[in-house]
């Protein structure tokens, strides 16, 4: 039928149909958009890592995400459609949550970081931060509430723990300072109190031995000499204990000067040669001709050398050999003091640096010593930026102590 042949009614009806088709298409597009928006919202809810709740205006649960179920250990069946306060056998009837939902949110549509602390029977004590939004949807005359929950229990525990640890550390530091002060005062007092009687012991026995006020018979002289030697041994102990404590407290200051090592070593060997001669020990000396001067504390260097050399004499039985090698090695001088004496068992190699350790052999029991000379010598060498180490192939196989001092250790005055 041609268009001009259609009746007016027919034309009206066709137009109406055409309009309906358009409207239907529009409606479908709209529905499609709504569907898309819903899916979009749905994926957001499921993507969020923290628990999320959607409530209607009656505070009934409309949606909850997977994280909510996982975290609060509840099922969708008991959750959806329930009044929020009834969740988990009314566990959710939390006064602070009521305040948020009933007092704060109606006045303010947006609340962040609202803290709620609660004891749940199934998941225990929890501290949570709530972000809440009230969304007003005019078209459907409805109000939706979004609740996003973050569990901060562990973070808070760590923060509190850190705070406590910090406090404890501060207290410990104060206590350590106090202890260091008490220790240093104790040592000063000990030093004073021990020196006072030692002054008499050493002073009177020295004067008696020297026969300043009259002669002694042979036995008296021997006894008095024993008192004097023992007094001096005690004094050495006190001094070494104090020095060890000083180095450990970082209070030992070096008085650096330029030391002509070659002449210093040769001069130091004189009294040692005397000691060695009495025990019929051979002495082998290899002091390099080009041994340089070093910047170091003279008294401390003498002390180290004396300790090592006198140890070599003490721990080598009659007829043995002791020796010293000294040479320049790069920016250091290296001195090795060796002997063919009682040696050190492998298990004792570290113990000899612990202080008061005496290698327990029938021979060493009879020798004089404090057991502090070697550890103190190592500390003094290290204070100069040097090193000290001991080698021994075992008991009765001799020992050698190698120590190195930098040619320039710090400022030379």
């Amino acid at each position, binding site marked *: 039928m041609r268009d001009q042949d259609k009746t007016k009614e027919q034309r009206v009806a066709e137009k109406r149909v055409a309009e309906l088709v358009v409207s239907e298409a529009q409606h479908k597009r709209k529905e499609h958009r709504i569907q898309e928006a819903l899916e979009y919202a749905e994926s957001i809810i499921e993507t969020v890592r923290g628990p999320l709740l959607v409530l209607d205006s009656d505070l009934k649960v409309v949606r909850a995400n997977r994280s909510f179920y996982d975290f609060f250990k509840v099922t969708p069946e008991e959750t959806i459609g329930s009044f929020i306060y009834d969740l988990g056998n009314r566990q959710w009837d939390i006064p602070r949550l009521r305040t948020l939902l009933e007092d704060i949110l109606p006045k303010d549509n947006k609340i962040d970081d609202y803290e709620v602390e609660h004891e749940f029977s199934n998941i225990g004590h929890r501290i949570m931060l709530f972000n809440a939004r009230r969304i007003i949807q005019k078209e459907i005359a409805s109000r939706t509430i979004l609740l996003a929950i973050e569990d901060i229990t562990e973070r808070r525990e760590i923060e509190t723990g850190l705070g406590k640890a910090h406090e404890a550390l501060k207290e410990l530091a104060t206590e350590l300072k106090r202890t260091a002060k008490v220790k240093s005062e104790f*040592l*000063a007092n000990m*030093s*004073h*109190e021990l*020196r*006072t*009687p*030692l*002054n*008499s*012991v*050493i*002073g*009177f026995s*020295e*004067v008696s031995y*020297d026969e*300043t*006020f009259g002669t002694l018979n042979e036995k008296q002289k021997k006894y008095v000499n024993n008192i004097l030697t023992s*007094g001096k041994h005690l*004094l050495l102990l006190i001094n070494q204990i*104090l020095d060890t404590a000083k180095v450990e407290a970082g*209070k030992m200051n070096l008085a650096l000067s330029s030391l002509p090592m070659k002449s210093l070593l040769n001069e130091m060997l004189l009294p040692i040669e005397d000691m060695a001669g009495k025990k019929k020990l051979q002495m082998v000396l290899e002091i390099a001709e080009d041994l340089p001067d070093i910047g170091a504390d003279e008294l401390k260097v003498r002390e180290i050398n004396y300790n090592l050399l006198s140890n070599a004499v003490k721990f080598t039985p009659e007829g043995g050999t002791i020796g010293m090698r000294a040479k320049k090695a790069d920016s250091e001088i290296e001195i090795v003091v060796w002997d063919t004496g009682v040696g050190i068992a492998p298990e004792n190699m570290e113990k000899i640096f612990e202080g008061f350790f005496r290698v327990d052999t029938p021979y060493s029991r009879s020798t004089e010593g404090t057991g502090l000379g070697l550890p103190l010598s190592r500390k003094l060498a290290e204070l100069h930026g040097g090193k000290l180490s001991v080698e021994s192939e075992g008991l009765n196989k001799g020992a050698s102590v190698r120590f190195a001092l930098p040619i320039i250790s710090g400022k030379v005055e």
Partner: protein
Amino acid sequence: MKKKALIVDDNANNLMLEKDLSEITGFEVFEARNAADGIAIAGREKPYIILMDVRFPDMRGTAASRILRQDKETCDIPIVFVTSSVMAEGIEEIKNITNTGFMGKPINTRTFAKEISQFIK
């Protein structure tokens, strides 16, 4: 006439040792067991030299020496502190007092006379 030395020490044994060594060196020795007596004897006898401990029951030797320094009669007498306080704090304490010396305990009886003579002008 012998030169006078004053020895102040609260420990009887140490006092005796220093006294005997000083007498052998040729001094006429006066002794005091505390700082107050020491100050009194110093004013009366005007010794050539004073050997003084640092710790006394009544006051410190350094305080006693400041009193001696304020008196015209005793301000120039050399004072040798013979003390067991040989650690840094002890030496620091006497640093600012004029015309003083330091001898650590235990004393060396063999060099005692020589050390004392160094402090006398």
